[in-house]
């Protein structure tokens, strides 16, 4: 069974965001990393980019395929996880902590409410 932490919010395209932190880290779920397997490259977004909710912001590459990553909420990209450059496998090994991809400063925190909670995401991937 996939790990679905209770404090996070989820998009149907398998990104998670942590609304309890500001700025909020974003990554891909345990379920997504298990589906992709073997992440070999992360093409990060540019710090300072303004994004809208649902906008494609970066790409992660596994041996199998390139996958688009979408912003769960609108805001500004304020940080990227430099550790993924040298060790993209972090996304597989530690998807919810060391494997965060970027941090976003939300412009409309109310958008968190439009995302799935852990129970809803758990049903989504069941």
């Amino acid at each position, binding site marked *: 069974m996939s790990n679905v932490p209770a404090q996070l919010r989820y998009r149907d395209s398998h990104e998670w965001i942590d609304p309890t932190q500001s700025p909020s880290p974003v990554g891909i779920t345990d379920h997504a990393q298990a589906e992709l*397997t073997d992440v*070999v*490259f992360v093409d990060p977004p540019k710090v300072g980019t303004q994004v809208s909710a649902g906008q494609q912001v970066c790409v992660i590459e596994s*041996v199998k395929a390139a996958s688009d990553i979408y912003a769960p909420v609108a805001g500004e990209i304020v940080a990227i996880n430099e550790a993924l450059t040298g060790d993209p496998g972090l996304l597989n090994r530690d998807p919810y902590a060391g494997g965060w991809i970027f941090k976003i400063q939300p412009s409309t925190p109310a958008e968190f409410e439009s995302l799935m909670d852990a129970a809803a995401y758990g049903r989504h991937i069941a």
Partner: protein
Amino acid sequence: MGARMVPFAGWDMPVQYTGIVDEHKAVRQNVGVFDISHMGQFIVSGPGAEAFLNRVLTNNITKLQPGHGQYTLLLNGLGGVIDDLIAYRTSEREFYLVVNASRIDTDWAHLETQLNKDDEVMMANASDFTAGLAIQGPQARAVAAAVFGSANSFPEHNTILVTMTENGPMWLCGTGYTGEEGFEFFMPMETAESWFRKIVDAVKLAGGMPCGLGARDTLRLEMGYPLNGNDLSEARTPLQAGLGFFVDLDKGDFTGRAALVAQKAAGLPDKLAAFRMTGAAPPPRPHYPVAFAGAIIGEVCSGTQSPSLGAGIGMAYVPLDAATIGSILEIEIRGRRFPAEVVKKPFYRKPAL
């Protein structure tokens, strides 16, 4: 078996069971088993079979002793590649051809057009009722011994053993698509299930695992083996694909020969080059643009991240001046260009023991 299925040439095929990299490493270090039931099998027999096949295939089939096979190509009249295949001589007057799944109907139709009434040739298409497994890796011999009760049944490289068992007939071929020792095992569909279980059990016991199309692709590309549809097409000749070794221009006439002779005399317009990404880069993938000296000159045919090398690798048709070993290409990935170096095939060489 927890497989992820994808449609491939009309079959639902497992792209991976546990993960491409794990499966890939299992084959390099141990053993893996692939379902290759989608592949096609033609049996060409009769007093005229040898002459007929020598007239339609590029390699010299008269050199084949019974029990031996060779890699060869089926060309159109312009020298373009319809298919690449393995032809085995199973007896003086019978040949067993193993062809690509996506090309079964095209190959068959082409062979029929090449056949003359007085050829004394019979052709049978056994593809629909033949299942197959490829057992590949350093432990493949141990798997054969466990399943067949004797290591003596292991077919040596490029040989074929056709025999009857209490489970029905089987064709054991000493070939593969991974660069590892191994064999391909074909059998009638209705006997497949019991064999599949035995073989998967033996593979697991030997420390291996079932593998999907994803690992099959990374393994073959590390060896620089072409995939028809990616690296071979009817628009290019085997000379452009670097497969001249499997073309015998001196054996007498065959379909496409005149075009190859003319192309050789005129010089090749381009050549399939192997390249390796030189720095951190996303994996190259089919159809990405390829640049040389600043200008786009082609596109990636096959490309992937090599699990053994930890680097992006691929092949592309490029003009001859760009195809020399050491020349620097650029692969355009989402609008950005990443450097790649033209290298010698195979990309991967087994470490010396």
